């Protein structure tokens, strides 16, 4: 089955991972900007990172026949440096018209601090001004429920970003309803130790349905599996779900969300 991984940090992965993903049926990935494992020191560090995301990474993905899309932001982990965050947000528009850029993301909260909230709101301001889609990171573990509620509160402070243009990521059993009730798209991340497993993601689909929801691997530089989406496909098949239902979650739903971006161009597999 063809699938799209709507959240995977391929800059952290080797080319062999692209090859394995393609062999498993991956036809496209979207890669949000994220934390590099250390705090970057200058706006030029981000400018170089955005060049990697918008120029080299699509080329490398193309070597394996995978279409590559990206999202731009400064990650919540680095938002404690408010001055640098503002410089980066002011620089992002240089890249917004590049092919493959889908919007602003992954923005959000990490430890639910006031500085994170400030920078999240300023990212939303940029998204509203430039009419961009928004991809949102929700915190991990003990911070997730509170952080997700805070994020929804901040989104609902304004009326110029419709909820159907926002994807709230890393939802789990206690936050999926918060996202869905708000009218937002949501995604489950299949990630060892933190976040969700393929079986729990299938449970959530069985409880909350397959509308406006997708799954991703968030494969990055930590312990993670860029072929986690096929694991979810296999789990759904084990349970007897139809191919059409599975395809909706792993292929059609990401396309429906991405197609709201005017720049989005996609070549379906033959």
């Amino acid at each position, binding site marked *: 089955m063809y699938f799209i991984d709507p959240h995977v940090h391929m800059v952290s992965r080797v080319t062999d991972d692209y090859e394995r993903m393609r062999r498993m049926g991956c036809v496209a990935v979207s890669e949000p900007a994220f934390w590099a494992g250390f705090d970057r020191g200058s706006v030029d560090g981000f400018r170089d990172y955005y060049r990697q995301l918008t120029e080299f990474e699509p080329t490398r993905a193309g070597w394996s026949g995978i279409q590559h899309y990206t999202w731009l932001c400064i990650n919540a982990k680095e938002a404690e440096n408010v001055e640098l965050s503002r410089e980066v947000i002011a620089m992002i528009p240089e890249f917004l018209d590049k092919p493959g850029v889908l919007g602003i993301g992954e923005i959000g909260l990490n430890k639910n601090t006031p500085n994170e909230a400030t920078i999240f709101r300023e990212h939303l301001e940029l998204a509203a001004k430039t009419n961009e889609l928004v991809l949102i990171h929700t915190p991990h*573990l*003990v911070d997730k*429920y*509170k952080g997700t509620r*805070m994020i929804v509160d901040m989104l609902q*402070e304004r009326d110029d970003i419709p909820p159907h243009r926002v994807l709230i990521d890393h939802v789990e*059993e*206690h936050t999926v309803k918060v996202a869905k009730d708000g009218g937002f798209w949501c995604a489950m991340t299949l990630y060892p130790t933190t976040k969700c497993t393929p079986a729990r993601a299938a449970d959530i689909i069985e409880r909350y349905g397959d509308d406006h929801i997708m799954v991703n691997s968030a494969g990055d530089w930590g312990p993670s599996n860029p072929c986690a989406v096929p694991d979810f496909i296999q789990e759904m098949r*084990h349970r007897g779900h139809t191919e059409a239902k599975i395809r909706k979650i792993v292929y059609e739903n990401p396309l429906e969300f991405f197609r709201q971006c005017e720049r989005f161009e996609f070549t379906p597999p033959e």
Partner: protein
Amino acid sequence: MTIQSADVVLDRHFLELRCEVLNLAAAFDRIERSEGYKSVRDDGRMELLRQGLDILRTEGTDRAERVQMLFSDEYEAGWNQ
């Protein structure tokens, strides 16, 4: 909607659930036989784990959600007013 019948689900998962219960039992044993156990016996995290086990012993279809909430910070409505 769940397609599988309960006996099929139980058949499929019994051995892995048995394994997960054993992993929990062994981890609690490991903590208790380690030096300094008395100092962590009343650690808040140990109490959370005990409460999590209590949730597993209840009935319902939302145990996972309740365990998630057990391990979550409290949200204060109106924080942004």
